[in-house]
């Protein structure tokens, strides 16, 4: 996403620059000519060097054919990409629909339905060139009219898309030709292309959006073949897909709903499925010892913060918030809750995999200082808190229990109240002042920070409002220079870490377990499941 600093980023980009010096020159020339953002750079890069060939040259020649069965915890309930938020649905829709721009497993943008994207000088107008000759699964052509219709739908308050809050700055979308659209923004937004890679920003066919929930029509490499809710979802390759040479090597992808972890592991090790994209760390010993199974791990932006409502006592007192942050032994939580498969975090939500990661120092636990702060805040005799959580998402309950154990050392008595997952979301989440939440990463740091922690954030869990923080975010949006933007966002992360309303103890890693025959697959830092360039060997 930017050319700067980040080791994560440099992996993908540097490799390409070293191997293709001529393209690099071409790129640099375009940058200097147009003053382009890093996003456009990435686009050009991907253009000059189709990604599919890259995968092939690394891992051997892709083989066409075969069926991959994926063991997933549940099944997609429906396929309306503007509504569904559960991972099982997202994992299917990733292959059925296309974004304009995608985020690949190296956290780089690559063209999907849009080939290029360019801002004007002030970054409040973005022009996208669309791929020509793309077909929807029903045979109709994909054109700029579909882009306009999709965004009109997403921006319509009657649609239930939560992505609307991420693109609230979009004033209008204009189809300037069948293969060109222009987005007019109300304010400058340097990371607008990244925003377009959101999992709900799938391009939909104009005038045919009513039945997508059960009859999805996308432009993706796979079309829905059959779906038995709660059992299996079968995707078959779409024969008119635009990039059959570089993607969609598998004939078929099947998603099998296997809720029980032990059953799922048995299915993987006995060859009943080729892939379990999310293996619990506690199952790792089984998978690692199994012949013919390979595991891969990636750090993600997923985190399970302990959330404090700052409009209510005692969390309205910054000293209490700081004290509660100081009781947390982050390494200990990573060890107990994640069995070591994660990274400690510093009470802010931008993960190390994000190019805009500010590297805020991880606080060490300091029970003495925590006691002092609590005493200053008037809780010298101890503090009683009730923390709500659920065992319904792995890690949330464990985090609460471990926090309780750690807080006891500073004289804070935490009562952990656990609820079944359905009751938790309905009755306690955002309705109590102190609870554990659960978030997956977003394509950009700005998106994650602004969605939850600005004064008017639609997703706010905490009622935290800090004008300095808001100002930093607004400035970052308007800053096209990646380095300057990184500085601003780092300040925002530091501010959230120091004064913010959340304890973010860790970022989770996700582990995939796959048959050694499965090639060209890697776990995605945004928890997506991307099999577009995977194939089966032998």
């Amino acid at each position, binding site marked *: 996403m930017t050319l700067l600093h980040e080791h994560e980023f440099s992996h993908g980009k540097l490799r390409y620059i070293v191997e293709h010096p001529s393209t690099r020159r071409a790129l640099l020339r375009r940058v200097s000519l147009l003053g382009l953002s890093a996003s456009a750079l990435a686009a050009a890069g991907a253009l000059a060097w189709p990604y599919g060939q890259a995968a092939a040259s690394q891992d051997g020649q892709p083989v066409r054919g075969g069926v991959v069965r994926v063991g997933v915890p549940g099944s997609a309930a429906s396929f309306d990409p503007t509504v569904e938020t559960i991972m099982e649905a997202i994992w299917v829709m990733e292959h059925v629909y296309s974004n304009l721009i995608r985020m690949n497993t190296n956290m780089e943008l690559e063209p999907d339905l849009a080939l290029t994207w360019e801002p004007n000088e002030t970054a409040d107008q973005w022009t996208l060139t669309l791929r020509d000759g793309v077909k929807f699964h029903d045979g109709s052509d994909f054109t700029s009219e579909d882009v306009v219709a999709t965004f009109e739908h997403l921006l319509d308050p009657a649609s239930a898309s939560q992505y609307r809050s991420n693109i609230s700055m979009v004033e209008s979308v204009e189809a300037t030709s069948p293969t060109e659209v222009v987005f007019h923004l109300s304010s400058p937004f340097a990371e607008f292309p990244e925003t377009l890679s959101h999992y709900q920003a799938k391009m939909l066919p104009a005038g045919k959006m009513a039945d997508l929930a059960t009859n999805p029509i996308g432009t993706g490499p796979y079309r829905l073949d059959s779906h038995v809710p709660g059992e299996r979802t079968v995707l078959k390759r779409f024969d008119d897909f635009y990039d059959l040479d570089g993607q969609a090597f598998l004939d078929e992808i099947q998603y099998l709903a296997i809720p029980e972890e032990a059953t799922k592991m048995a299915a993987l090790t006995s060859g009943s499925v080729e892939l379990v994209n999310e293996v619990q760390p506690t199952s790792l010993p089984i998978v690692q010892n199994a012949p013919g199974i390979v595991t891969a791990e990636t750090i993600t932006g997923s985190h399970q913060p302990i959330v404090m409502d700052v409009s209510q006592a005692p969390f309205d007192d910054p000293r209490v918030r700081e004290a509660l942050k100081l009781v947390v032994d982050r390494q200990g939580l990573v060890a107990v809750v994640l069995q070591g498969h994660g990274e400690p975090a510093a009470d802010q939500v931008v993960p190390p995999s994000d190019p805009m990661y500010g590297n805020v120092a991880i606080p060490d636990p300091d029970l003495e200082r925590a006691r002092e702060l609590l005493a200053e805040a008037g809780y010298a005799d101890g503090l009683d808190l009730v923390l709500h959580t659920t065992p319904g998402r792995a890690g949330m309950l464990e985090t609460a229990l471990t926090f309780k154990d750690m807080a006891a050392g500073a004289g804070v008595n935490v009562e952990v109240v656990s609820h079944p997952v*359905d009751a938790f979301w309905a009755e306690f989440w955002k309705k109590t002042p102190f609870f554990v939440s659960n978030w997956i990463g977003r394509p950009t740091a700005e998106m994650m920070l602004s969605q939850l922690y600005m004064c008017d954030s639609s997703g706010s869990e905490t009622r935290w409002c800090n004008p300095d923080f808001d100002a930093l975010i607004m400035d970052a949006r308007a800053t096209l220079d990646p380095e300057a933007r990184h500085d601003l966002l780092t300040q925002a992360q530091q501010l959230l870490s120091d004064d913010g309303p959340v304890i973010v103890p860790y970022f989770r890693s996700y582990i995939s377990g796959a048959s050694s025959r499965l090639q060209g697959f890697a776990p995605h830092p945004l928890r997506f499941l991307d099999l577009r360039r995977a194939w089966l060997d032998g």
Partner: protein
Amino acid sequence: MLRFFTRRLAFMALTLFIVSIVIFSVTELLPGDVAVMILGSEATDDTLAALRTQLGLDRPAPARYVDWLAGAAHGDFGESLRMRTDVGPLVLERLKNSLALAGIALAIGVPLALGLGIIAGLRKDRPSDKVITVTTLLGISIPEFVIGSVLIMLFASIWPILPATSMIDPQGNPLENVRYLILPAVTLVFVTLAHTARMTRSSVIRVMRTDYVRTATLKGMPRGRIIMRHVLPNALLPSITVIALNIGWMIGGLIVVETVFAYPGLGQLMIFAVTNRDVPLVQAVALLVALIYALANLGADVLYAVLNPRIRYS
């Protein structure tokens, strides 16, 4: 008999009506609604409101019930709020799966249970009786989820000869599909075996004590003939009703077994429906379970009345 039958059917319809009202009221009382469950942590006030409008949840509950009832009277059980698809085919598919599993479990379990019960009854207090009694006691006492998990460990992990999941492939080879059903079916057999076996055992013991069996023995009739002609027909009569009732029980009691083996049956669908607050789906599954239960009871009573000349209905 006919009057008895029609009376029972009328009561059944009434029961189902009561059930539908109770279930609808209960689901209204449940915390949260399907919109909250769909959006989870991504929910905001305006997206929730939009989704509720799309799903028709903004209308008052009694109006929704009356609509549902009008549809149900015509055989239209509405659309699942969570899956956005017709409830009818969804439920029937799961019913088929549950019946297949229950069918296999019965096919293994019934002859086994009857055989064990007869052996135990005829050899009362001898070692074989003790072994059978203790085994069936274990079967009745160990929770289904423990038996199921142990079977998975033994036959899918340690000695991998059977698949751990029970994902039936609709296009797959039926014989291969049966393989997937073995572990869950065996778990069910374990749990249901005990009741039928113990029932049969005590009937056999009771019949063996009757005057006519004693008379036959005193008359010098061979033991084998006594058993075949006098003991079994009388002793198995109650077992028949037990088996009929087991069908009704199995459909509902499958919940745990279906959860352990990821088996897509009615029980799992019910849990999905409840946790997602999918009211039309909860209604349909609950009514179906109640209907099966009532039919099994009715079947048992009718079968019993037909087979037992001593009972007559006014």
